């Protein structure tokens, strides 16, 4: 199972990196959110995908899955959610003021 997850994460990372290297700002933001998906799946995978009950003591099971990565992922999800929404608003504002979403045109050696 870990092997398939790793392959999937690899594909997500590849696509994310490809999108980040493109010129359009929206594609870059999509790339960053794909990358965060990738690392969250990586966190889950790296704690071994053993079969076990959900980490609720009421389940009275013999074995539970590792609860720690789930807490880490939950933290990381809300952080990246906040950052992504800020990034979207920033991109919107930049589009309004600068009139372009092409990163090539945002090099800005000159000081306006």
């Amino acid at each position, binding site marked *: 199972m870990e092997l398939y997850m790793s392959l999937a994460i690899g594909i997500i990372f590849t696509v994310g990196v490809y999108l980040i290297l493109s010129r359009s*700002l929206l594609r870059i933001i999509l790339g960053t959110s794909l990358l965060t998906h990738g690392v969250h799946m990586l966190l889950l995978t*790296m704690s071994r995908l053993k079969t076990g009950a959900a980490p609720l003591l009421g389940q009275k099971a013999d074995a539970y899955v590792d609860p720690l990565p789930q807490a880490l992922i939950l933290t990381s999800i809300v952080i*990246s959610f906040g*950052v992504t929404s800020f990034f979207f608003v*920033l991109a919107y504002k*930049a589009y309004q003021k600068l009139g372009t979403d092409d990163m090539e045109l*945002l090099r*800005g050696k000159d000081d306006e």
Partner: protein
Amino acid sequence: MNNLLVFPLLIPLCAAAILIFLKNNVIAQRWISVIGMLATVSASGAILVQVKTEGIQTLHMSGWMPPYGIVFVADTLAALLVLAASAVGAFCLIFSFGTVGAERERYYYYPFFQFLLVGVNGSFLTGDLFNLFVCFEVMLISSYALIVLGGTKRQLRETLKYMLINILSSTLFVAAVAYLYGAVGTLNMAHLSLRVAEAGQDGILNVIAILFLIVFSLKAGLFLFFWLPGSYSVPPAAVAALFGALLTKVGLYALIRTFTLIFYHEPQVTHGWIGWMAAATMVLGAFGAVAYSDVQRILNYNVVISVGFIAFGLAVASKDSLDGAVFYLLHDMFAKALLFILGGLIVHLSGTSRLKEMGGLIRKYPAAGWMFFIAALAVAGIPPLSGFAGKLLLIRGGLQEKEYLLTAISLASSFIVLYSLIRLFMNAFWGEEKARPEQAPALSKGMLLSAAGLCVIVIAMGLGSEWVYRFVTDAGDTLMNPAIYIDAVLKE
């Protein structure tokens, strides 16, 4: 157990929360943020005294013993850095009163300022890797807001790049944490150190160490500093001073902590990389500092050079050079804040940031001129001032460990620093008075007050090096012997 440790976070956090309700009352905002900042400085001073007298202090959140709970650890290095960060924050806060403009002050400038300090102090004090990530994010999100606040075209453009770089490095940080958790199964730094020592730092752990090196180098501007000169030149001077003094230093602290506490078993791999990155950083930073004739660019490349300089101390990793790195780190926080504040004043007074269009400021503003001169000498490391003792220790450490090339590069970079800053001084303050806007801009007392305060600290740190060294050598001992740190955290 020592509840005092959480106060450097709690006080700015509460101050920021209260400030959100006082949007339109700028006077109240200023008072509350100053009071909060002074309380933070005194709390961190108290922590430093306790650490000095009673040894390393720890705080187990909610009474969960490590490695299961989150632990806050104050060794001498963390306590020194928290105190320095809070003091620098206080001076930048006072400087921002007259300079950031009423519009920013009404749009949550002070809350963001306080949140930034929460993140910085938290990063210094935490003893848990994932909590370090969270504190980094607190600091970074506030820094995004502080850079873009005002919303000019340049700020929007540079913030886009700054955010993208930091989202990438945070993503890599989480990936590195995932790999490390998968390899050794813990996140508490002291426990990590034990587990890594038991497992032996073999191939996979070396790869993870290099991944951490890349992550923290992106944050600290060590070799991967291409984002730094652009994004630090767009915010107002008070914010740039705060960034130049604190943000890269947090990355450096994370590097020092990681590579002295956790990944210290294979220095020929990890520390070799750090050494070459430090050398490249100093050389490239020196090119930048000489090439530009723009005040902000010159100062930004000086930040880059000093990052390389401190990383050189970490790369050599003997007692002397780690002492020197800690000493220089402390000095650099104050000196860079002073330099950026005075650079901001120069731009404010001459109405331009281009060297060619300014001149003759010394006749009207002698105090600012001589303070800039002192700051330049301090950053270059001229003996009676604060930069000297750190540089001396670093150079001595480098020579003792026979790292002649690195030592030569770092000595040469000091000349470049001196040249670039004196060139700035001579262009701005000497020579003919150039045409300026009709009314000569006033220089209020408040602006000079913060610069003067930092100037006094820089001089005092130089004259009282012996006194500062007693703390610094304590910090160096803990860095050299990770066992001291581990015992303090795990055995109680």
